[in-house]
């Protein structure tokens, strides 16, 4: 396992706010993710988790206010494809794929355009990434639209890995998966992490989140209500209240 480097935050958010008219989707959020750590994010529905990934990647919108830095360099004013090329790659909550391209082409495109590789390098990187996510060899020539839900999730993660990420943002990767598939997913996250890739994980499936995260942050109504080690965070009364409501929390 790669040792976390505590001194340097790799990804840093400084007072980031995102407004939609009167709605405050992210309210003055500041946190940092260290190099080579697995950083978990949880929170009730509508707490601003996905919005956080949206403003970090600029897809489809940047923050209204605040700064986002990658390895000390501001990235929040870059065009979205440049943010990806700088090393922040994300997956999406909903299925996303290039439906008419083959699985291999899906991953290859990311290696070429995001990883800035030559054609030969990109082919190797694509096969390596597809091996990493264990997508069966005989399925790789299929059009992405012909793959199963789980295979499409594997594909989305493979295409992110092939883009040479420094930080991988996973947005609810376990949604809709069976228990054995979730176990496979946590193995996959550890594999990615061993490669030296920093992982930020949004997840509703708590066993997965608690199993893989080194640090955990909880959002509610667009603001951070707790952060720290997973064990500390789950005992935090505010967190319990946010998840269960006030009355149940008192009980």
């Amino acid at each position, binding site marked *: 396992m790669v040792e976390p480097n505590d001194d340097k935050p790799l990804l840093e958010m400084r007072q980031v706010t995102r407004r939609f008219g009167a709605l405050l989707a992210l309210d003055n959020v500041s946190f940092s993710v260290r190099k080579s750590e697995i950083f978990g994010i949880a929170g009730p529905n509508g707490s601003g988790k996905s919005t956080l990934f949206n403003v970090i990647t600029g897809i489809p919108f940047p923050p209204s206010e605040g700064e986002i830095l990658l390895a000390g360099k501001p990235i929040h004013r870059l065009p979205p494809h440049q943010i*990806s090329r700088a090393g922040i790659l994300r997956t999406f909550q909903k299925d996303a794929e290039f439906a008419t391209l083959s699985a291999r*082409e899906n991953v290859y495109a990311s290696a070429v355009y995001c990883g800035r590789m030559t054609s030969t390098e990109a082919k190797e990187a694509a096969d390596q990434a597809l091996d990493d996510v264990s997508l069966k060899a005989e399925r790789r020539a299929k059009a992405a639209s012909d793959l199963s839900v789980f295979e499409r999730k594997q594909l989305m993660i493979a*295409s992110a890995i092939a883009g040479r990420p420094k930080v991988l943002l996973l947005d609810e990767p376990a949604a809709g998966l069976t228990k054995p598939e979730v176990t496979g997913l946590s193995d996959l996250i550890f594999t990615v992490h061993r490669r030296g890739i920093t992982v930020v994980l949004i997840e509703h499936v708590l066993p997965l989140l608690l199993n893989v995260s080194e640090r955990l942050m909880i959002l509610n109504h667009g603001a951070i209500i707790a952060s720290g080690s997973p064990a500390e965070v789950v005992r935090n009364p505010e967190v319990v209240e946010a998840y269960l409501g006030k009355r149940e929390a008192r009980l």
Partner: protein
Amino acid sequence: MMALHGGKLRSSKVWLIGVLLIAGLLVPIFVQDSYLRHLFIISFVYGIVAASWDLSLGYAGIFNFAHVAFFGVGVYATGLTAKLLGIDPWAAMLIGGVAASAAAAIVALPVVRLQGVYVVLVTFAFSQLVMQLVINQSNLTGGTQGMVRVPTIWLPGYNFLRDYKLGYYYVAFGLLVTTTVCLRWLVRSDFGLSIKALRDNEDYAVSRGIPIALQRLKALVASAFFTGIAGGFYVIYLRVASPEVFDFSTVSLILSMVLVGGTSSIYGPLFAALFLTFISEGLASINNFAEGRFMLVALAMIVVLLFFPKGLASALPAILARNANQKRSRQSGTALADRALMTSSDKENEAEAASHSGVR
């Protein structure tokens, strides 16, 4: 097995292309009639326009309705530079391509950031704008009267005007083949992959480092370049230019070629252009049927799109696959007959096994 099948398909495709190329080269030997040769030449020009439209419309998924206007820009840029500036008509054809690309770059500025119906509106408005410009500048362009006596291409010791269009035929055929090779190369390149990716899922493509505005700009500029050169050749060949090239009827004719042929194939629109040109001209020569042909072409389009929504280009692989399936099922039919001879207890055992595997 699959690779073998793919290999066979590819080699039969190479054969087909080779045969068509030779056929294309031999046509003028068998076709001496200058009107028929003219139809071939016009169909080649439409083939270039339709196939290059497929790059922006089919592959990049940009609802670009300015493509025929880019053709018109090519027509007038070549016509004006050859006639008024006295530039060599060969070079003027190239200028037609460059001018069309420049027009595409101007259209791209607003279009790369828009989506769907707004792209249609902007590109359509651009077409109207160019047409009005051509009509208004009548002292240069001849306005609605058109521009006449445009100088034509030449070669040392050869007169294009006195050989029953033989020279023009080969120039048009050469342009068509060159365009097709370039377009096929483009769509199979990494660039082609990136524009298909953007068409399939914009946000996802950007998240994988594909620059949306730049790739769309490139797709529009490249597709306009070929259509601009085709426009240049068109005016050099006909030696007249008229604002009719911007008409909606021209747009709908070429659009029907693209759709009937099938988007995202290059070959589909190309062959549809060849067939539709001959059919529509053939019907026009029937007495009192000059207008009825448009109805027939429209009807053909509806019928084709009803049965092959992805165009005729999608029909060939579908038919090949169906034949392969029938062959397979004939083979497995023999296997079925063998299985009918199994004892009933064998069948029960198998049924049990099947139900277990279903649970698993």
